């Protein structure tokens, strides 16, 4: 005669199930708690990523220039791509109407670890995205990153996959966050009329600056002075462009030490002074590549004469582009548009 399961056994089974359920709930609670901790750590970076890809349109203080531009998401992680780096004097005297004092078209080939940087002179006289003619630094003023990209694409006959815009304070912050950069300053960089627009006083004031020559460590402020000064320089904006590329190369060396966990801190300090349409996955994927690019694999291009020539147009000093020379070079280094 078999025995019917007794009440005690049923109770035991029930208790066992309860224990499993309770244990599962506790384990889930721990997992959720840990995930919450991880999520809260990456929250600043996630917010930036959402904002930058346009999923949350905060427009950074309502400035239409800084609205995100959607990116080409079809690129594989190993495919070469063109990145347009934009830098603006984002201090108080511009009241949000930013020009791009710096435009550097960069081609990054993750597979071959080769990088090419082309500085586009801010005074280049071109046809802007809205059909008018003007200096290329005004494209951003007219239509933000979208117009800057369109203008570069139309005039240089090149495709831009991504862009990244950074303001003055953002550059200082990111350089300080990585602990500064080591640079060999080419010559004494002096300027008695350097804008004193980051000190919080009158943004139209001047200050004197001097960057000594030779190998040295630069913090964010010193590096900004180095890349921004231009008045006492035989080559003015061209020399400044070369120094900007130099700082980017020095910054690349610093990214060797960075990893995914450094991104939230960078995102927090960049704040509203940075905008890109690259996803956080793309950015974090670039960090190890940037750090491993050897100096010899970096090509620097500056559009000195005969690529450009000085011209006075509409009462402005500008640079006339020699497209017949520029476009073949751009096609060679950055690929031609189809």
């Amino acid at each position, binding site marked *: 005669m078999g025995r019917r399961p007794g009440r005690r056994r049923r109770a035991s089974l029930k208790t066992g199930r309860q224990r499993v359920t309770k244990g599962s709930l*506790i384990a889930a*609670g*721990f997992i*959720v*708690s*840990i*995930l*919450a*901790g*991880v999520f*809260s*750590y*990456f929250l600043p970076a996630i917010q930036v990523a959402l904002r930058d890809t346009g999923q949350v349109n905060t427009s950074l203080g309502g400035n239409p220039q800084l609205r995100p531009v959607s990116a080409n998401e079809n690129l594989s992680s190993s495919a070469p791509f063109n990145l347009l780096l934009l830098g603006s004097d984002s201090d108080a005297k511009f009241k949000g109407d930013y020009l791009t004092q710096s435009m550097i078209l960069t081609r990054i080939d993750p597979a071959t670890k080769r990088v090419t940087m082309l500085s586009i002179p801010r005074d280049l006289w071109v046809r802007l995205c809205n059909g008018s003619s003007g200096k290329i630094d005004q494209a951003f003023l007219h239509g933000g990153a979208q117009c800057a990209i369109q203008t570069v694409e139309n005039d240089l006959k090149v495709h831009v996959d991504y862009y990244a815009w950074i303001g003055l304070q953002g550059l200082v912050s990111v350089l300080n*966050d*990585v*602990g*500064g950069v*080591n640079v*060999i300053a*080419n*010559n*004494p*960089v*002096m*300027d*008695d*009329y350097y804008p004193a627009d980051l000190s919080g006083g009158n943004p139209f004031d*001047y*200050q*004197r600056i*001097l960057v*000594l*020559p*030779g*190998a*040295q*460590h630069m913090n964010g402020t010193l590096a900004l002075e180095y890349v921004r000064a231009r*008045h*006492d*320089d*035989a*080559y003015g904006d*061209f*020399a400044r462009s070369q120094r900007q590329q*130099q700082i980017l*190369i020095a910054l690349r*060396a*610093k990214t060797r*030490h*960075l*990893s995914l*966990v*450094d991104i939230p*801190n960078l995102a927090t300090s960049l704040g509203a002074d940075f905008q890109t349409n690259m996803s956080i996955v793309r950015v974090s994927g670039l960090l190890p590549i940037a750090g491993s690019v050897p*100096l010899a694999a970096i090509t620097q291009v*500056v559009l*000195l004469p005969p690529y450009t020539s000085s011209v006075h147009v509409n009462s402005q000093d500008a640079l006339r582009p020699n497209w017949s020379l520029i476009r073949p070079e751009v096609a060679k280094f950055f690929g031609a548009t189809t």
Partner: protein
Amino acid sequence: VRRTLVLFAIMALCGLAANRSLAALQTRNTAGSLVDTTSPQIRLPGTIFVSQDGAIYAIAGTGVRRLPLPSGGEWIQPRALSDGTLLVIRRFNQYSDLYHVTTSGRVLARMSAGDQSIRNKTLQLDHWVLWPVVSPDGSSVYFATDSPKPAPGQSYEVDFSLWAAPLSVPLTIGGTGVGGGIRWSFPDRYTGGDIEPVPLPDGNLLYASYANTGKGTVVSVLGLQTGPGSAMVALTTPAQDCGAPAVAADGVTIAMVCTNRGQTASIEVATLVGTALSGAHVVVANCLCNSPSWSPSGDSLLYMNASDPDGNFGLWYIAKAGSAHPGAAKRVTDAGVNLDATSSAAWMTR
């Protein structure tokens, strides 16, 4: 209920721990202070003065001490005098001045007044004075200053030229030159000009001169002048892009930093024969190095080099650097210490 609350608290702590663990993995970018991490890696005779974070430090034997100079500005570019005192530059945001100080940090004299804008509120009237060095006979001080320069509002031009003046008299640097001083060089405009003077025992002047190539670049050459205002003889080529000259006690062995217009540098040693360099050879290759200076005896070389993994600039030493078989480069300061790479070390025998 209490058990449940404890459990929730432990869960919350786990979340916090996960958050802080990630934060702990962040890259740290901190450079140590010379005094806090005192313990030179090698013991050198005499006293070596270096600049870090705007202060002057003395390294003697196995100890390091900070000179208690007045606060304000940055104290840079120490130079040893034969009487056991120092010339030092005190640099502020808009100007700099030359000071004569003791090795215990007492100011003996302020030798220039670059802050002209204090009186007239026009900051372009301020001046830089940098790279001081005393002549071999001890009577004159040579230096670079951004005087003369155009009146405020007239031009953006501001370049260094080289001057000499009696060491016993305060410098009067104005918009048109240095009162009582002798102007040695006339810089190539808008290049940064002429810097780092080194008066030689034969009365000639060696220095780094920046020049516009006319091809989109500004480069540095080592220049030699036989008298104030005389034509400069280039000792190196524009392609070598050499600067930061340092002359050993023999007056002819020269150390210099050359970049070959690249993003790394080398330290080369050569012999000055008449108005030409000969026997140049590399003693430190492919480095982020700057500011060589010789030992008082002239056989050992000090320089700044960013070779530790964090990229901090330390003080390095090479014995017998002027010989055909220089010693191995050795770091003097601890790893992690970040010195002012644009200030060469001053080495005193005592």
